[in-house]
């Protein structure tokens, strides 16, 4: 019992009169989140409609060959030169947020997002 009192008293004596958290202005709340850079989307003018002509792919199927697996059901996307230039420019910007992101990862995420968006747009158009 003596030990308990001593341990508790040590902490209580040290910390009972510690100051409270200092408030900071409201914009502090954005630190770590909203304050960080966001990858700017390409301008609409940068797109060429022809870039999208070959998108007859399944939106949710994997695009790259899964490593260390025996699943051959992946699809290959061919990207034309203007699109590849845009993708590369955006990847360089993305690296300012995440220095570890690889081009393959980034391109896969972008194309997959694009395919899903295209699929949703086609479904809306069909209704």
């Amino acid at each position: 019992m003596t030990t308990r009192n001593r341990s508790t008293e040590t902490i209580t004596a040290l910390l009972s009169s510690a100051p409270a958290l200092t408030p900071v202005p409201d914009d502090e709340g954005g630190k770590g989140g909203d304050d960080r850079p966001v990858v700017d989307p390409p301008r609409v003018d940068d797109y060429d409609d022809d870039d999208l002509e070959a998108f007859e792919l399944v939106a949710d199927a994997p695009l790259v060959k899964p490593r260390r697996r025996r699943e051959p059901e992946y699809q290959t996307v061919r990207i034309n030169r203007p699109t590849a230039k845009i993708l590369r420019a955006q990847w360089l910007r993305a690296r300012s947020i995440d220095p570890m992101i690889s081009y393959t990862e980034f391109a896969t995420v972008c194309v997959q997002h694009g395919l899903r968006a295209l699929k949703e747009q086609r479904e809306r158009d069909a209704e």
Partner: protein
Amino acid sequence: MTAERIAVAAQKGGVGKSFTSINLATGLAHASWRCLLVDADAQANSTSLFYALDDIELDLYDVVARGTDVRKVVLSTRVDGLDLLPSTLAVARLDHEMISMHRREARVFEALEPLLDEYSAIIFDLPPALNAVVISALSAATSLLVPTDASEWGLRGAKMFLEWGEDLRQARVLSADLLGILLTKFESGTRIGREVRGELYQSGLPLFDVVVPKRTGAERMIASRLVIGDEGSDEDINDAYGRLTLEVIQRVNDARTRRGRHAKG
């Protein structure tokens, strides 16, 4: 008031990250700072100190990867004013799944956002790794505490970690203030201990005044699942982490005052 988010991080294992996270969080709770301890390490050391891992149904993985409401995952602990966002082995999968997530560096922050006004401090116990989970937690942090043990490898690891942190800072991923380097497992009677401490003093890095001594009592505390202030806890450890808590409070409040001045321009 928005919580101060303190990441306890180092790339080297065994330097006392979890022990420091747990006892700093406990100390802050004793100082009437309502505190959330976020266990982001799949080893789940912080979690296991308060709960049997078999009892954990939801963890950080569910919050970040599955979008589970963070309020359903946070658990209260036996320490008054201290809550826990637990971890299990599932958190090891989180890093792999975050690879394909959009804006993954913001995921931890976004997962905790509903709780920011409910706590004075959120302490991140991070794994000894430089992976996507660590980057995301560092990105969410407003302050950084780097423990290092009193060894040559510990010293080198701390320097490497800080260099990596600078890269993240330049990439605008990390914006946390470096609260300080905490020397742990220090043995004043050994030459290497004194040399490492001397080298740290000469490095110009912001060291905490308090040094955590090496004590078998610390191992006993872990084995018995004790935190500072508990019956049977080591008196020197109690004293060290109590004084560390005071230093952290002082440095956090100073940093917040500076941020406030900076925000006002």
